[in-house]
């Protein structure tokens, strides 16, 4: 059957993703921003980058942070309140579930000097640039000194 044809399906998924990319780009243009949970901001100052993220309602121990090369990965899960019998949701707007988000950093990081804080539901991770990657200043000796 045509609709279950694998090639067709792959092509369809490709165009679906393309459509998604386009709609994301459009929503950015129109000022509406939609992103994957958790939302992050990134601040850069010289050889240090700070990533902040709003992850309300979970314990610091439940957030898994790892850095590989230039990728910072945030993982964890937020559980929904268990509903018992005779309980009913009137509104359910809060996000729940497992999350896994990769943030691309502007440079490689000195992984042993990464500092993470979590307060009031806001995570703040400071990552210094890898020493080996820092631009080295090269002194230029004048010809006369060498002589």
């Amino acid at each position, binding site marked *: 059957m045509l609709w279950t044809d694998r090639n067709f399906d792959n092509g369809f998924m490709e165009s679906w993703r393309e459509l998604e990319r386009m709609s994301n780009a459009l929503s950015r243009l129109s000022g509406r921003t939609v992103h994957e949970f958790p939302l992050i901001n*990134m601040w850069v100052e010289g050889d240090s980058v*700070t990533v902040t993220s709003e992850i309300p309602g979970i314990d610091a121990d439940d957030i898994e942070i790892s850095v590989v090369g230039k990728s910072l990965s945030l993982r964890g899960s937020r559980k929904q309140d268990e509903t018992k019998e005779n309980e009913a949701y009137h509104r359910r707007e809060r996000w729940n579930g497992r999350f896994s988000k990769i943030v691309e950093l502007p440079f490689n990081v000195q992984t042993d000097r990464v500092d993470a804080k979590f307060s009031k539901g806001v995570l703040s991770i400071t990552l210094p640039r890898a020493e080996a990657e820092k631009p080295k200043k090269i002194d230029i000796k004048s010809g006369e000194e060498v002589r």
Partner: protein
Amino acid sequence: MSVTTKDIEKKEAKLREGVERTRSRRVYVPSVDIIEREEDIVLVADMPGVDDKSLDIVLEKDTLTIDGHVEETIPEGHRLTVSEYGIGDYHRVFTLSDEIDKDRINATVKHGVLRLTLPKTAAVKTRRIPVRAEA
């Protein structure tokens, strides 16, 4: 089709026409869950950046107003390169029905999540109508 990405956004609060804010801050609407239980109604609101000192909950007649003030912490000398969320205060208004015992409302905040317990009045709790089978 399974779309696995979970897109979320922070919604900015709309102002009523003719009303202006006195603070030049962005104001967001916190996402809430409202769960009705046998004894009470629980309201859970996501308000990252807010703690017990920066939260104002006012009950006037039947109107419950939740306000949260967030201190903007911009790291000194830093340049914002990726911005997925805005930082600002929170504001949301709810109308309570008569069945809430307004004197026993309890509020706690932990990790940026407000949890309001609104107990039902005794009259509401016992309002159960027995159904008899007709012979």
